[in-house]
């Protein structure tokens, strides 16, 4: 497996742990459909949150948030609508968040969370 995929997987773990600690309930990980994948779907207080996780090993080429483009968010929005169509019961409110993980090979891993970005 390529290193970058491994890094991505590790990042998603960190993000899930981070959100769980913040009181979110994990509904799904790597939810897939024909059009793509949602990294994390979590819920807190009746609000369903679709999370894009972006992981980098350092900030040398920019912060992870900078790699989240408008096109990527738009796709996430479409996927979220598909998930809602299938969900029972339909969620009352939804939100789209981004979690940035900086996971260097050695040293502290940092997790940052932006709410309602789109």
């Amino acid at each position, binding site marked *: 497996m390529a290193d970058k995929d491994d890094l991505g997987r590790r990042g998603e773990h960190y993000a899930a742990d981070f959100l769980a600690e913040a009181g979110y309930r994990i509904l799904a990980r790597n939810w897939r459909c024909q059009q793509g994948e949602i990294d994390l779907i979590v819920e807190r207080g009746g609000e369903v949150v679709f999370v894009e996780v972006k992981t980098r090993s350092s900030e040398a080429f920019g*912060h992870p*948030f*900078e790699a*989240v483009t408008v096109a990527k*968010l738009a796709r996430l929005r479409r996927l979220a609508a598909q998930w809602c169509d299938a969900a029972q019961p339909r969620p009352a409110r939804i939100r789209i968040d*981004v979690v940035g993980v900086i996971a260097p090979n050695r040293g502290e891993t940092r997790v940052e969370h*932006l*709410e*309602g*970005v789109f």
Partner: protein
Amino acid sequence: MALARTHAVALLGLDGSLVEVEADISGQLPAMVLIGLPDAALSEATQRVRTAAKNSGCPLTRNKLTVNLSPAALRKHGSGFDLAIALACLAADEVVSPESVGEVVHLGELALDGRLRPTPGMLPAVIAATKLGYTTVMVPLGNADEAALVPGVRVVGVASLRDAAIWHGAKLEPLRVEAIMNVTEEEEDPVEPDLADIVGNEDGILALQIAAAGGHHIFMLGPPGAGKTMLASRLPGLLPDLDAAAALEVSSLRSLAGRHVGTSLVTRPPLESPHHTATAAAMVGGGSGLIKPGAASRASHGVLFLDEAPEFASSVLDALRQPLESGVISIHRANAIAHFPGRFQLVMAANPCPCGQFGSAEQTCACPPSSRRRYLARISGPLLDRIDIQLDVRRITAAQLRLANDRPGLTSAIARSRVVAARAAAADRLAGTPWKVNGEVSGPWLRGPQARLDPSATAALDRALERGGITMRGYDRVLRVAWSIADLDGVLRPGREQVGQALYLRKGMTP
């Protein structure tokens, strides 16, 4: 605090207005939005600022930045806002002190490596900031000398955004960088051409001194090669040094035109000689979007020389009538009016006919009378109305050349000292009136009790008026020139001789 503000200056013509630059940080994905009617160059500031900040070691926040340029309805041009935008963003992130940033006016363009580039229009912008009550301006080091020409302002010259951030209290180590300086353009020969180079043409030399003493506009008519251009280029050398206010205005216009200003104010009157294919916008200023000064503005407090005047488009020549009347050039656009100074001394030169030989002794003119008439009629009557002196310039003969070799000519330095004395005398006499030189004085004042001349002195002039040789307007013009001649000669009021000479300088002119 996620909100900070600082100040910059937006220029419209020579007038600057204060622009408040506000930056707000909100918890969204990295982005930078610039609002407040920026033009294309200013919109790109977002890219320059983000990159420059990163390369200066003080990256902008990774959240969304909203930057507002207020007043939002005023159009803003150019790249001079970069520094203010960058510091407002850093202050919103508390990298630098918001209080410190809020008290300073910031001007300058950023390079991607974080250094500051010299920015055109610095001098008028700093003048505007001072007028609006700000005492500290931060400018690129390459502009610091220019900004320091403005009295009563504290200029902080910085080489890079890092230096600017440190000045405002950022906790960074200073890093020496090579400041970007203005490309020192080849200074055009600072030595003004000297009057002593002129051979013969005694009339011309005298007329130039009279024009310089009285601020009279002058029209030179003569065949090609007679020395019209040579005479005209020596007029600025006869004018006195600019006073402080005029020097600041001339330097500001230089700065606005994107030319190098240097470490001291321009103290010599400028000379502008646009080519005869110039458009109206090139002459009086204009341009889409950013309104730039034209040749007439750049010649303010100096000389505007139009060689081959009939070859200019008549609309271009007539565009000069407004500044000749009011001394101000106003350029109207749908969303703004820009004012530029336009108090110049006009010098026009023309051939007497399309082939240029009419009236010369050596060759015969081949032009039919109708085309000759049409040629000079291209200069409209209202424009000629403002010209006090018409000069016939003739080619030099071999005999004159031999004579000139024996006798050294008058130098510009001596002529200028005469002109300065004459102007002082005129200013003394005109104290308490709105005028400073004879060329501006109105006709009724000249004929009023305070300046009325002896009937014996004006006898020749009165006779010309009776015969219909000149009009009332022409009469006034002769009087104006006569006063200038008297000032030059050092006599108290013009006598028969001075009036005669003034009349001679109008010969052949439209009545």
